[in-house]
């Protein structure tokens, strides 16, 4: 990346991170966003702190060059959470694209004055690469959910099979009149 843009991003690191965090948090309902933003304790607010830590780590990678092993862990931390919240797949990984929005807003003047569009598109490509990686991670998380479902069903089936004589009733076997089995609820 061109030194100029990198310098600007480094200088404005904390402002950009704060704004990036804010726009990601705003993808949650307003009451929730308030909590996610305000509560700093990572035990009391695991979602907010996972997102903040995650975007901080990702931003660092974008600046110093991407190590795919490391970056996969950082992406996984955030996506694992958003994959089980009520987001569509595109919404779940939208947080990456929000960084483009934040950088453009924050460095609007500098980008225009220093003609940094080429550097900017280079940065965009890096973010796009992370987005591609995110598809894989999102799918991995979802697959894990269905594997887990499958595992639970198989375990229950195995337990039932082992029991052999588990009590089960056929439809109609207990068709007694109301109140005849036990007292009315």
């Amino acid at each position, binding site marked *: 990346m061109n030194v100029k843009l990198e310098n600007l991003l480094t200088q404005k690191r904390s402002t950009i991170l704060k704004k990036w965090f804010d726009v990601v948090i705003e993808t949650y309902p307003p009451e929730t966003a308030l909590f996610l933003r305000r509560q700093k304790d990572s035990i009391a607010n695991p979602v907010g702190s996972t997102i903040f830590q995650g975007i901080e780590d990702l931003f660092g990678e974008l600046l110093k060059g991407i190590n795919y092993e490391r970056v996969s862990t950082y992406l996984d931390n955030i996506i694992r959470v958003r994959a089980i919240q009520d987001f569509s797949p595109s919404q779940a990984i939208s947080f990456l694209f929000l960084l483009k929005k934040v950088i453009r807003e924050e460095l609007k003047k500098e980008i225009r004055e220093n003609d940094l569009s080429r550097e900017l598109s280079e940065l965009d490509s890096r973010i796009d690469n992370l987005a591609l990686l995110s598809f894989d991670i999102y799918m991995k998380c979802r697959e894990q959910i269905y594997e887990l479902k499958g595992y*639970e069903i198989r375990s229950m089936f195995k337990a039932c099979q082992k*029991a052999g004589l588990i009590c089960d009733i056929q439809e109609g076997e207990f068709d*007694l009149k109301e109140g005849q089995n036990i007292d009315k609820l």
Partner: protein
Amino acid sequence: MAEVEKKEEREVPYYETVLGASPEKLATVDYKPPAKPWMDVPPKFKKLDYLNPAKVKWMKVIDLPFPREWSPPDEDWKLPENWKEIFLNGMEDRLKRFRSFQLFMDICVRCGACADKCQFFIGGGDPKNMPVLRAELLRSIYRRYFTTSGKILGKIAGARELTVDVIKELFKYSFQCTECRRCSVFCPYGIDMAEITMIARELLLLLGMHVNWAIEPVGKSFLTGNHMGLLPHTIKDFMDEYRDELEKITGFKVDVPMNRKGAEILYIVPSGDFFDERGVILTIATLLYFYHIGLDYTWSTYTSEGGNFGLFTSHEMIKRLNAKMYAEAKRLKVKWILGGECGHMWRVINQYMGTVNGPADFLEEPVSPITGTKFENAKDTKMVHIAEFTADLIRHGKLKLDPSRNDHVIATYHDSCNPSRAMGLFEEPRYIIKNVCNNFYEMPESCIREKTFCCGGGAGLGTDEQLETLLRGNFPRSNATKHVHEKFGVNRLLCMCAIDRAVLSMGLSYWCPQVTVGGVHELLANALVIPGESPRTVDLRRQPLKRPITPGKIAGKEA
């Protein structure tokens, strides 16, 4: 006249708003969800993420009203014709019967102390899972139909009409509350959210609506004595198998007393301990432990369930399912009852059993046959928690323990909601763990003891049917576990509840698969130094030990 073409309104998929957009255009897309007042957000049921309704056959077995086939995503829930009347009459009846319910409807000042304490809100972010708002779902109905201000001022006074959507909303969120009572710890008025959820579920049940994960176990427990429907000979077969497994690992051939009349103590466990792979290991451990101390006790194939899913169904059902405990104790003529590592069993015992099915005058005040300690706290219920019993033995030096036999385990402890919040059992399990394990690390103070996070699967939610919701509710606990895993290398999460063992295993396999789950007494049995023991290289779950066990030696030195 030309027909007016109807434009189909459809929700624009998110990707269409960004498709083909340049980075500059992308930067203008608004990702914020629309801010709507909570009353205007209708409930949605996502595919593969809701609890299935109770099956007709199980509803009929226990005589529940309006059994029918229906499904939450359906538009028509086939409510009975006079559903509104039934619901409001039911509410009026409960306002009269339960002073607590009336108070909880009236006294909330919406201070927000509970708002960020629910696992489902913390992990999922749905505002209706803030306890204050979840209670407001019912409170708004209370105001509209039972208070003057609500009747006159309506929405301004926080009141709203009872509609089918409100019923759907109540169903959705009543089954996203595990009745764990964490929020109540933080409420300055002590409003018990679990009690509100219980009433909401009772009201829904009047309309024939509940979840199968609770009703089928209730039905099976009513028929066989346990939630799984295990029949006596099946339990006997299982226990024989566990006895054999114990012999293979340790060389000890132990007795398995079943339904033995005249035993001093009746031992009751959750049925998961009979069949669930995550509970069975605890049964094997208990067999070894009781054999070692020579306890005069018996298992029962009739009281084959400590848990009581009646607690998640209705007050009447609690009483019905709980009654078998005393009935069996009477039949077997035992002196008192010892209870295993179960969760909500202890809430029922401490908060309901004494009054709904007591007094158990035919039983004796529990006294430890080994130390002579009187368990005065159990004077009323005649039922002692196994952790109290074991801690007393250790305190009196009655057990020879070698904690180094658990050196392959780096443990942390999850206070299961009900033993901690419903009976204050904080110290005994920790005392046992510290005596049987050299590596024990607490999770941060804000999520243990009475402030413990729920596993996310209590109160009939512990199923893969609603897996995503469960994983959201489980996230806070798993996150704290991951924290101690990264900091101290923790590899075992100990707990004292069958639902915990199942749900925490499920949750951790997604959030932090390096950590396994287990019971406290499994570690106790691992650490027991028993006369006549054989050399071995594995623990009770057949995991390799750090140092092979040499008979008669503690931590490699002469005992």
